[in-house]
């Protein structure tokens, strides 16, 4: 049985984060990965491509216009859930994986609204103890109101 104070987070939504997709941020991301695809780097090349401009690699959504103390990958909702898990004795977290649906390309200059929701929390018994899995779905919408992508991230707490 999931601890009650953790289970109550299922279905909760967090604040919307506004993300700006900047060319420099795209380059730093692509550089870190070691990806020199000209669609991410070369404006002239990208302008002639089917995208018409520099695009972000799939899975990069830009930077928030306002940071939490944690940075772009955390929201108030995740902080609250982590605190509840810590109180229940689950203090160590590992990234379990991610699952994306891509609906449209993300271009330099786009402004995205990232809206998170905890869609599932479950536990598994293992040889080394109980693990709690949380699944957060973030929906990304562009300044045109278009659905751009959905990401479901699983975190593993122990």
């Amino acid at each position, binding site marked *: 049985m999931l601890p009650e104070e953790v289970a109550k987070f299922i279905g909760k939504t967090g604040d919307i984060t506004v993300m700006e997709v900047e060319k420099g941020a795209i380059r730093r991301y692509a550089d870190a990965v070691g990806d020199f695809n000209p669609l991410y780097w070369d404006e002239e090349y990208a302008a002639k491509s089917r995208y018409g401009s520099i695009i972000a690699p799939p899975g990069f959504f830009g930077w928030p216009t306002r940071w939490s103390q944690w940075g772009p990958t955390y929201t108030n909702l995740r902080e609250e859930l982590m605190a509840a898990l810590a109180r229940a004795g689950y203090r160590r977290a590992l*990234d379990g994986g991610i699952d994306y649906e891509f609906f449209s390309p993300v271009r330099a200059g786009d402004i995205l609204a990232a809206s998170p929701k905890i869609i599932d929390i479950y536990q598994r018994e293992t040889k080394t103890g109980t693990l709690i899995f949380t699944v957060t779905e973030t929906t990304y919408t562009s300044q045109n109101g278009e659905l751009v992508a959905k990401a479901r991230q699983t975190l593993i707490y122990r």
Partner: protein
Amino acid sequence: MAKQLYWENVEVGSEIPPLTKVATTRMLVKWAGAIGDFNPLHYDDGFAASQGVGKPIVHGQLKRAWLVQLLTDWIGEQGTLKKFSCQFRKVDYPQAMKTIIEPRDGEPWWCKGTVTKKYIKGEEHWIECEIWVENGKGEKTTPGSAAIILPSRGKDFY
């Protein structure tokens, strides 16, 4: 960049051209800055040890970004990544640096994949793939899957 891939040029069982990567301590610093993940799990020896992973580990999401590149390099500008999923099953440790830019000697990681399905949905030509990151010991640390729409040469091709 490789020439454009067409739906007619792949079969179930086709192998994706492998992509080699080396996760170095330097790359992890670049990644942390680029994505905004400042979790000390990835740079602080004492903290990593306290989390039960031994020493600082490679960010799962960096491995995810490698796998996205494996696919985008292969499908070319006209291909569209629609779905992507991966799980972080085993931790990976970064290679230490020998000089400011070169890592110490060690086995690289390999990103690989194969085509598992091929079908048409309306006007769209889809493939599905199984993908993974293999470490220097040949262990699949990061398995995953993807769904892609490829351009077709059209009915006139045959």
